[in-house]
């Protein structure tokens, strides 16, 4: 019995031993294999695992927002759906085309031709409405997909449109500040890591904090811009003019407070407007300034000491012939002081001031004021203007350039040159963008820059006072604003007519260049009306527009009165 029992125990014991050895052997193999996979082949399998489980996706950052100086939104990008097809996946092109065409309201033939395209991917319609996207998705058409992409929105529509510019369907800035600051605004493409399960479903998407939040702050103030545009449009429409420009700047810093061009366009649907309306005329368009330019001739003459304000000059009773060319005034003047020659805007006396300076000196000052070269404003396509080399001027050119004919300038150049008159002789560099903020950090800040000193403080103050007299008793009376001393200079210039090979008698440019208030000047500005009909003189066309704008500006910027206020009258704009 015992022997049998002993044999059984023996067998069990052997089995346990065998299983234990086998178990240890399996464990050893398991550990060895794990070690082999983890240590020797670890890197290889890690890479393989990562490539299967993780995918790197490139996403583009949302285009930066644009705000005015007070934080009001000017441009913003939002995700909107777009429809695309994969033609190889479409089994019934006709049926699919019919369905898509009815949902998206686009011609059947257009859709069909896109489906028949030998391309793996074709856009059908970009930037569709959410309900159109919903219809497409619920229709369950094979091979038709929705992709969300960013679209630029300009909530203020036409407001400041030529300054802001616009972006194309691919989100690249094509015009205006959108183009100039494209590199900042479009941000960077961010690579994010996505983890997937065996069925390629997303398990984890790396948080996108890395995608930049960009904000571009303009120097422009939305509400003032609106007022400038409204008045400008009113003036252009009232005088059936071809176009208009209005620019207003802080002369101490160079910040552009408002920059308007009319006609403008709606950047949300820019392709529905003529390309001509895209131009920011203040920066790109060249015009002959006319009498507004006399301010610079006078400044140069005073600075050089060739004239004194009390000097008397004979204004030839309204007409004078130089090199067989007739120079005339809008009304005959006899003897005038230099001061009155500017206040009453005599071309003949201005030409005589130019003679006293001579071509070399006048040419030098013109260049120093910044004409014939770009101002450096942060805007694409700036024009340098047109100035003939002063060494090649003939006497009649010296005469006409002295009163602003025969020279091509831009509105922004005029403002920069004019900044020297109100800035103790220094010209200032203009700018439209004050800062760019990326993820809460300032990555760009414009610093006010004085370009150069052109005239002395004394000369600047003398010219400034004369300009106040232009508004008080001269051609700029309509620019006066209750409670302030406004200074300025009118300009009515003839346009060159290529057909007749000379200056036109029917096409004019009416402009006004001014500042307010006299002490501690806060704003300088220019209004230019191109080819007004009926009235041509600046005193009737550009000056009242300037006055209306500047009156609004005083309220906006809460500039204290500097003189006695006349009795107020209610304005009825209806």
């Amino acid at each position, binding site marked *: 019995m*015992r*022997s049998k029992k*002993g044999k059984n*125990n*023996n067998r*069990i*014991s052997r089995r*346990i*031993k065998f299983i*234990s050895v086998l*178990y*240890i052997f399996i*464990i050893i193999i*398991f550990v060895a294999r794990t070690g082999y996979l983890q240590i020797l082949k670890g890197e290889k399998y890690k890479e393989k695992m990562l490539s299967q489980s993780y995918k790197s996706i490139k996403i583009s950052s949302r285009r930066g927002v644009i705000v005015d100086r007070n934080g*009001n*939104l000017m441009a*913003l*990008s*939002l*995700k909107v759906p777009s429809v695309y097809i994969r033609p190889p996946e479409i089994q019934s092109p006709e049926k699919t085309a019919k369905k898509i065409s009815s949902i998206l309201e686009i011609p059947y033939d257009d859709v069909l031709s896109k489906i028949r395209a030998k391309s793996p991917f074709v856009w059908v319609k970009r930037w569709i409405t959410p309900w159109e996207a919903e219809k497409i998705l619920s229709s369950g058409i094979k091979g038709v997909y929705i992709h969300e992409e960013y679209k630029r*929105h300009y*909530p*203020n*529509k036409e*407001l400041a449109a030529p300054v802001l510019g616009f972006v194309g369907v691919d989100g690249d800035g094509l015009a205006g500040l959108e183009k100039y600051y494209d590199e900042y605004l479009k941000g960077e493409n961010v690579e994010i890591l996505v*983890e997937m*399960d065996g069925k390629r479903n*997303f*398990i*984890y*998407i790396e*948080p*996108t904090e890395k995608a930049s939040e960009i904000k571009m702050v303009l120097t422009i103030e*939305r*509400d003032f811009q*609106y*007022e400038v545009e409204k008045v400008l449009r009113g003036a252009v429409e009232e005088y059936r003019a071809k176009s208009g420009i209005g620019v207003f700047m802080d002369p101490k810093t160079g910040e552009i407070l408002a920059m308007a061009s009319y006609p403008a366009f709606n950047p949300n649907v820019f392709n529905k407007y003529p390309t001509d309306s895209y131009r920011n005329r203040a920066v790109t368009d060249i015009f002959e300034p006319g009498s507004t330019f006399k301010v610079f001739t006078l400044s140069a003459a005073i600075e050089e000491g060739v004239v004194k304000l009390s000097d008397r000059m004979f204004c030839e009773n309204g007409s004078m012939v130089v090199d067989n060319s007739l120079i005339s005034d809008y009304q005959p003047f006899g003897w005038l002081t230099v001061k009155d020659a500017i206040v009453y805007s005599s071309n003949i006396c201005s030409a005589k001031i130019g003679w006293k300076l001579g071509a070399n000196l006048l040419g030098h000052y013109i260049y120093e004021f910044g004409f014939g070269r770009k101002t450096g404003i942060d805007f694409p396509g700036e024009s340098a203007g047109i100035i003939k080399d002063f060494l090649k001027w003939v006497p009649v050119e010296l005469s006409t350039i002295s009163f602003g004919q025969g020279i091509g300038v831009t509105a922004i150049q005029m403002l920069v040159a004019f900044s020297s008159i109100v800035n103790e002789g220094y010209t200032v560099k203009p700018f439209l963008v004050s800062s760019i903020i990326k993820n809460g950090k300032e990555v760009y800040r414009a610093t006010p820059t004085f370009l150069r000193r052109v005239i002395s403080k004394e000369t600047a103050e003398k010219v400034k006072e004369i300009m106040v007299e232009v508004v008080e008793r001269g051609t700029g009376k309509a620019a006066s*604003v*209750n*409670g302030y001393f406004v200074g300025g200079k009118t300009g009515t210039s003839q346009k060159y007519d290529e057909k007749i090979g000379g200056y036109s008698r029917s096409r004019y440019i009416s402009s006004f260049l001014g500042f307010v208030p006299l002490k501690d000047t806060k704003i300088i500005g220019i209004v230019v009306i191109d080819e007004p009909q009926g009235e041509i003189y600046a005193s009737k066309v550009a000056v009242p527009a300037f006055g209306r704008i500047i*009156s609004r500006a*005083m*309220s906006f910027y*809460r*500039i*204290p*009165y500097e003189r006695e*206020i*006349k*009795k*107020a*009258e*209610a*304005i*009825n*704009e*209806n």
Partner: protein
Amino acid sequence: MVEMGSTTRTRKRKEDSVAFLPMMIIGSLLVGLPLLGRIILRHTTIEMRREITRMEMEKNKLTSEISELELQKATLSRPERIKEIARNRLGMKEPADGTVIIIPVIKNEK
């Protein structure tokens, strides 16, 4: 004597065999527990990552909604629209020059 010796050997073998059992259990636990732990950890991580992704998507959706509302606000506060409402619905008029008196701020006033 022979029987006694056989019994002792059998017992010894039995004891030896039984001594393997704790080793087997410990070995199983040493291998099995970390594996189980790893599986549980992985599962929890995946679940948490799914949750983070869901919340991230929710955040993106809300950011998108905020942007839409900002756009709507900007559209509604356009100066042109405000002016039109003020004039046409509320019967307001532009103040004339001199109606609004701006009082200069005197700095360092005690």
